[in-house]
């Protein structure tokens, strides 16, 4: 009996360690938990691209909306773009673009080339809005509920499951 404990215990510890470390290998150290998730979305009011309108987060209260941080200099944004174009066909939520640290002319040119999925494009010329949202890489996407709280933040290009997992439940809960 004692012998089995002596042999089995180190084996058990070893196995547990292997499982824990193997799981650790799967994690991407660049994917950080968002400090803003579950908190009210920072408010801002900035000019929009290609119009004299102003975009304000206040105007989005009561609506489910998604803000996608992008830029013309961002190569990963090109990968993500077709998915956003597909999502833009839906009318049950609002897709807002945030042109992050980009020259408006360059943004406009890029959107002419790749298509424009956004209802409005807010201009974050000096990156201050990015800092307020905790953006550390582009693209990033934030889902915000009608109460103005960030329910989900995605770093990197969105995947196919993005809408079904993170936006659809909000729409179902807030018809």
């Amino acid at each position: 009996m004692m012998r089995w404990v002596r042999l089995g215990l180190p084996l058990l510890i070893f196995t547990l360690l292997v499982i824990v470390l193997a799981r650790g290998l799967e994690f991407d150290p660049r994917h950080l938990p968002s400090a803003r998730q579950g908190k009210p979305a920072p408010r801002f009011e900035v000019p929009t691209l290609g119009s004299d309108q102003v975009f304000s987060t206040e105007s989005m209260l009561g609506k489910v909306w998604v803000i996608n941080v992008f830029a013309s200099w961002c190569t990963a944004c090109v990968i993500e773009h077709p998915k956003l174009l597909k999502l833009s066909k839906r009318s049950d939520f609002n897709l807002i673009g945030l042109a992050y640290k980009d020259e408006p002319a360059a943004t406009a040119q890029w959107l002419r080339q790749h298509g424009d999925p956004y209802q409005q494009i807010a201009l974050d010329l000096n990156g201050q809005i990015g800092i307020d949202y905790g953006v550390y890489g582009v693209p990033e996407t934030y889902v915000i509920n009608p109460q103005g709280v960030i329910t989900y933040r995605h770093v990197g290009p969105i995947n196919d499951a993005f809408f079904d997992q993170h936006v659809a439940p909000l729409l179902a809960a807030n018809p």
Partner: protein
Amino acid sequence: MSTERTPTDAPTPEKATAPVNDLAHTGEPADSAEIARVRTLTEQLRCLVCQNQTIADSNAGLAIDLREQVVKQVRSGRTDTEIKQYMVERYGDFVLYDPPFSTINSVLWIGPFVLLAIGLLLVWRSVIRRHRSVDAPSQPSAEQRAQLQVLEARYQASTPSASTPPASTSKDSAQRRTR
């Protein structure tokens, strides 16, 4: 490991063409105390794009922006705690090189001490055990004593009229006989 890892772009200085907030670059001479404060603060904050550098060391676009943010806030008279709080609100505890104690990271803080305690306990136990066996090196166990009794009884039964003392297996009697 994961092949699904997706690239993200960090703004690089030459790409960031937007007018940066020029408070940090104004000709206004900074006094040395201010510079020292900015220096210590930025050395305690992690650059999130290049994770093993502080924002003082890094030249990534975001690190430059955050450095400017620190300069701006130091100039506007904010305390160190307030500035750190500003960063943690946005980027989480990860932005601090010296993360505070919380339930999530308590294992990291306490774990090594628990392991040390377990190690010391094991060492102490094995030392005690060795000590005992040194104290009583030739004490026969209960089992051995029982065997001895059985053997002696059997010997006496087979030689009832023996006048010579039995050649016992016991070390003591053997030694006595040779003397």
